[in-house]
């Protein structure tokens, strides 16, 4: 499978195929099923559907089998998080790096369950408000994070992400509103919140005089983890973030990426139900980012609720199950990724990958009344058109899709469908829900289109983000 070439719209060269890419990816749920990725049981994790995928060419043939487990990233880097002693050939459905100190399904003492509408969100914020002097930093910030969700908080710098997170982490008292973490109010039950929350700030220091294992042991002790269990917790977490070999090094000597991973391990020492990561990837090189991302994914698989912020959309695009777009201190759009995209596009962004030139597919789609903004990107993977691989659907063409909302062929002009055998990607926006999507897929398959990929188009996030933040600029707050 040669799919791992930089075909993704998200900017990361080595990013994996997003969920729901292939027809076979049943459990992924982004496009084909109504089962949301994050809310699914950890036994059917997002991204696992593509396994077993053979190691990529750049991965040495002699690499261990467990490498396959990391195939969600399609790179050798992700495999570094696999515990060395992981059973080879383990069924992909059971994450084999789950440390025993982290409970896969955290018991959430949802005290305010009734109050939270019975759905038992891992984290819920209602109308949080914070001002510094005359500057309103956060205004009416509301959010609902279900268990198991990886919730992306996206917004430009100064949008109020960090302030919101600090309020949620009980480091800042809100001026108005309230929030509940695992059912505990951040206003009145702060100790309970701190017990259930793992928080990694955007910038944090370490104690230079401590060794890596002592560092984790210390925070575990601060969180009241019994002394007898601490050594085990430390070992598990070091394995999870792949720092076992640095166990006895001084924290001072770790690289930035390693310190960031250690910081993440620190946030997990008490097995929190909710994890908040504020700009976890800032200042990391691409490799470290991938590693971090893999750990976050793993946490989602364990059923933890992860709230992760970034001002770089590409970082979150294919990681998150849910997304909230924040600007000017308020949540502008939030929900499942595809829902947000659909809501803002007036439909569901879909990507179909087809063998052949794809023009006939495009023509068929253009005749349908419920399909808009059809774009054809041709020859992405075709050896006959190597240059075309450099033309991922980045924002210019995609933005055209959003702004016109009509049957514009802006994207198609760039590639030009190759004659003869090749591969093409058709992007479009479909009115309707999962059922409409399913019907469309059935029809297309019945019509014998050589479709090999059909799924939710995460590349649309970039447009959504631009669209939403632009809209905010137009309307006075």
């Amino acid at each position, binding site marked *: 499978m040669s799919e791992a070439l930089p075909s993704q719209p998200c900017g990361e060269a080595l990013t994996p195929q997003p969920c729901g890419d292939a027809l076979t990816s049943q459990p992924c749920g982004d496009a084909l099923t109504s089962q949301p990725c994050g809310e699914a049981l950890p036994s059917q994790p997002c991204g696992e559907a593509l396994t077993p995928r053979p190691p990529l060419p750049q991965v040495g043939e002699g690499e261990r089998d467990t490498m396959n487990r990391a195939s969600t990233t399609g790179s050798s880097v992700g495999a570094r998080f696999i515990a060395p002693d992981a059973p080879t050939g383990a069924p992909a459905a059971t994450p084999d790096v789950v440390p025993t100190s982290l409970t896969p399904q955290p018991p959430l003492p949802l005290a305010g369950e009734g109050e939270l509408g019975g759905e038992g969100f891992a984290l819920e914020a209602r109308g949080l408000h914070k001002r510094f002097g005359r500057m309103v930093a956060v205004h009416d910030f509301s959010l609902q994070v279900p268990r198991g969700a990886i919730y992306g908080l996206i917004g430009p710098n100064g949008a109020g992400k960090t302030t919101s997170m600090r309020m949620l*982490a009980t480091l800042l008292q809100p001026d108005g509103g309230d929030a509940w973490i695992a059912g505990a109010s951040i206003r009145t039950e702060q100790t309970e919140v701190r017990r259930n929350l793992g928080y990694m700030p955007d910038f944090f220091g370490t104690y230079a005089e401590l060794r890596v294992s*002592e560092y984790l042991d*210390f925070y575990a002790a601060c969180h009241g983890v019994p*002394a007898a269990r601490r050594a085990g917790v430390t070992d598990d977490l070091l394995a999870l973030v792949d720092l076992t070999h640095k166990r006895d090094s001084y924290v001072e000597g770790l690289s930035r990426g390693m310190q960031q991973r250690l910081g993440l391990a620190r946030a997990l020492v008490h097995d929190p139900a909710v994890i908040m990561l504020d700009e976890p990837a800032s200042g990391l090189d691409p490799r470290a980012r991938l590693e971090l991302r893999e750990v976050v994914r793993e946490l989602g698989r364990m059923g933890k609720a992860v709230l992760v912020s970034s001002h770089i959309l590409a970082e979150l695009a294919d990681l998150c199950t849910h997304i909230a777009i924040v600007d000017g201190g308020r949540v502008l759009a939030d929900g499942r990724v595809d829902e947000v995209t659909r809501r803002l596009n007036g439909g569901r962004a879909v990507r179909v990958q087809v063998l052949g030139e794809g023009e006939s597919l495009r023509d068929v789609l253009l005749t349908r009344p419920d399909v808009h903004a059809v774009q054809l990107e041709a020859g992405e993977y075709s050896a006959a058109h190597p240059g075309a691989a450099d033309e991922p659907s980045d924002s210019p063409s995609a933005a055209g899709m959003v702004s016109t909302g009509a049957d514009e062929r802006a994207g198609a002009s760039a590639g030009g469908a190759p004659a003869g055998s090749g591969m093409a990607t058709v992007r479009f926006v479909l009115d309707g829900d999962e059922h409409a999507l399913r019907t469309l897929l059935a029809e297309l398959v019945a019509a014998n289109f050589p479709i090999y990929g059909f799924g939710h188009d995460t590349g649309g996030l970039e447009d959504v983000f631009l669209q939403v933040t632009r809209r905010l600029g137009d309307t006075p707050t």
Partner: protein
Amino acid sequence: MTANDTTTVAPPAPLPPAGLRALSPDRLRARFANPLASKELLARMRGPRAYIVAITLLLPLAGVAGLLYMMISSLPNAEFASSTPVGKLFFATVTTVELGLICLLAPALTADLISGERERRTLDLLLVTPLSRRQIVVGKLVAALGSLLVLIVLALPIQAVAVLIGGVGWEELAVSLLILMLTATTYGCVGLYWSACLRTTRGALLLSYITTLAGVGGLPLAFMLALLGNGLFGTRNMDDLLWPLAWLLNGPQWLGNRYSGNAQVLNPVTMQLEAVVGQLLMATNPLLTGVTSAAGLVAGRPVIALERVANVELLYVAPWLLFTGVHLLVAGALIWLTARTLRRMTA
């Protein structure tokens, strides 16, 4: 409960009643163990800081003591060399030098406790743990001051040379130890408080030293200036105002003799008030407390007594006892204030 409870891997024994459970070692450890204190101690012992602190305190002290001892032993009259005033002089000098060093060290050890965490960007990580603000403050303080308090005990043999020379008893030694430790604790708390209030360690250190200087040197300086002014301008008022110091130093008889002729000069109520204020004021200062405590011990005055001064019954409380009370109170208040500052920080 079986005897070899701890060695078995058997299923857990039935829980003891709730009252006993609260007293179980695990519970007690969970209640009183402070992970911050252990970690800080570990970190402090690792760096060069522990050695620097030890050297800063012990080396000058040993140097001064050695010098004094050499001077004393070179005195021509051997009998005089082992006499009371020489021993007292030795003791007073060594203890004063030690007090000065402690005033130098204590704020330096604590002025970075909170601001240092802030500067290192580790404070937030502590504040999101379920540790209470007071636990954080106390844990850090215990680790910072613990080493200094141990050093004060270690310096005891140097002071104890005075006992060998003569003229100084074990009580004086014990009282001086108490005063030194309380001074270290209190001015350590001052540093802690400023480190929570100020953004930078440098600012906290500066304010801590100013506070320490005022606290330790202020009152003796004021007294000296007052006496000097009295000597220069002969204002009797000043003398009258300073009578509590004379009372504490010289005992009630001396003062009684002085005022026996004109008892009306001093109003009994004013005298009571001045006695209380004077004693409390003295108790805020380690130097004055040291001197007056030593005088009291030498004169064999009881710890608490009613003394008749110029026909007025005054309550005498041993200066070191008042000093202990005042300093424990101040240290406690500063810890509370620091914890409150930390709480407010997240508001």
